[in-house]
């Protein structure tokens, strides 16, 4: 870790010097001393975020340019489980936004024990917030070839066989919600998988694409993914089926720019950002 940071130092210094030379900023001296205007230092924030936030966060990053011109944001979008693994394997990350509490819990030292069995300490205490809420949606390809009308109807059709459903695997939060929904209808996922009724995607976008391409008869994704892909939603899961879907966010201890990361996290909670999130199907977390 340390050596990585050190090896990047010359690059950062060079960027700094270049930026100063280009802007010909009178206050800044080329010997690298702090100039007293923090805004003059270009900062690069690395944000690890659930794949379901791809469109909204990309839009917000564009908006943030006007608020903090010196902060550039680099995203890594993937399933929260993959992101968690990457963080555990030492990836440098300033801000982590997970699509479920589970992945954040596993990195939060204040939950050592049950939710964080390995006692991992990555979350900067006091920065963790519940940012958003999402819904789980049942989507079908154009024309709804199998005439699926809702989760209850899907449960009947799965029992009868002859329907191919796409869901996230057990590592993907949306896959875990899907499993709960199936269980709430008294269906055993393992049995269905054995019968060849389930195909597994390794993140939510893969499931979305498989439905969009009509490769499968239906799929379970987030309301936000259904919205961004323009898919027909035939049903959304209730709190009783799979609980609430909360997106927690936290600044990580590996961050080299904790203040900038916290500032961006605060910005995400402003009305301007919530408008963007709500337009895409999210709602603010209670």
């Amino acid at each position, binding site marked *: 870790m340390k050596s990585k940071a050190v090896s990047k130092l010359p690059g950062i210094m060079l960027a700094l010097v270049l930026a100063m030379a280009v802007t010909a900023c009178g206050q800044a001296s080329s010997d690298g001393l702090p100039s007293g205007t923090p805004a003059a230092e270009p900062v690069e924030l690395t944000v690890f975020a659930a794949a379901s936030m791809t469109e909204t966060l990309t839009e917000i990053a564009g908006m943030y340019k006007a608020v903090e011109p010196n902060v550039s944001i680099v995203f890594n979008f993937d399933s929260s*489980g*993959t992101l968690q693994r990457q963080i555990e394997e030492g990836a440098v990350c300033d801000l982590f936004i997970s699509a479920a509490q589970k992945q954040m819990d596993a990195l939060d030292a204040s939950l050592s024990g049950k939710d964080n069995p390995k006692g991992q300490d990555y979350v900067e205490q006091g920065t963790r917030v519940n940012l958003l809420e999402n819904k789980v949606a049942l989507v079908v*390809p*154009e024309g709804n070839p199998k005439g699926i009308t809702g989760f209850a109807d899907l449960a009947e059709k799965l029992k009868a066989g002859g329907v*191919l459903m*796409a869901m996230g*695997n*057990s*590592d993907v939060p949306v896959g875990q919600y899907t499993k709960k929904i199936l269980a709430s209808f008294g269906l055993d996922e393992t049995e269905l*998988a*054995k*019968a*060849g009724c*389930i*195909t*597994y*995607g*390794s993140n939510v976008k*893969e499931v979305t694409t*498989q439905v*969009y*391409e*009509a*490769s*499968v008869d239906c799929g379970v994704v987030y309301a936000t993914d259904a919205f961004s892909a323009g898919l027909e939603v035939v049903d959304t899961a209730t709190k009783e089926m799979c609980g609430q879907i909360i997106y927690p966010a936290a600044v990580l201890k590996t961050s080299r720019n904790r203040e900038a990361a916290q500032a961006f996290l605060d910005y995400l909670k402003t009305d301007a950002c919530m408008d963007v999130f709500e337009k895409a199907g999210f709602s603010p977390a209670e």
Partner: protein
Amino acid sequence: MDWFPLWNSLRIAAISGVLVFFTGILCAYYIARLPRVVKGILDVILTLPLVLPPTVCGWFLLMIFGLRHPVGQLLQQIGVRFVMTWYGGVLAASVVAFPLMYRTARGAFESFDETLAWSGKTLGLSNTFIFWRIRMPACRQGILAGAVLAFARALGEYGATSMLIGFTPGRTATISTTVYQLWRTGDDAGALVWVLVNLAISAAVLLAVNLLERKNRQGRRAV
């Protein structure tokens, strides 16, 4: 333990291996005879899957055979479906493995001494006879190498396969997609089993090739 992925991988690799063996040889034979420009163009098109990332091949296959696209819809009407079925796996593996067979067979044919074929003609032999009994035996090493490479590539295909047929346990799961899924779900022990299975098959294939080559060399020395 469910051994379906092994069976599925083997049948996909075997069928696409056979398909690619014959189409690769035929293309190599006929294209070598075409005018230079046409040959150059076809050569590029047929070799592309070798240098393209498999995901790009997968994307093209999905855009052609996907059920939202004309060809896919047409095939669906006559009951053929390449998405989310194991035949789709054969298609994906064949496309990706084809250039290996085609290139090696062409290389072998180009180094073939054509006077042997002409001598055969002067003796009144048919083209078919010359092809199968003179040309093919003379080129057997290159052709064998191509076939093995194509089979191994088909067995290990992941990118295009996962895009076209996904991962449906008991239907489309192959060894490579199973390893990936098990790793993704944190089951490293399960992944290790399949990694070992794959290593065993690959080692067996390579060993078989070495044995065949040695036999070939010995045979040649005796002549």
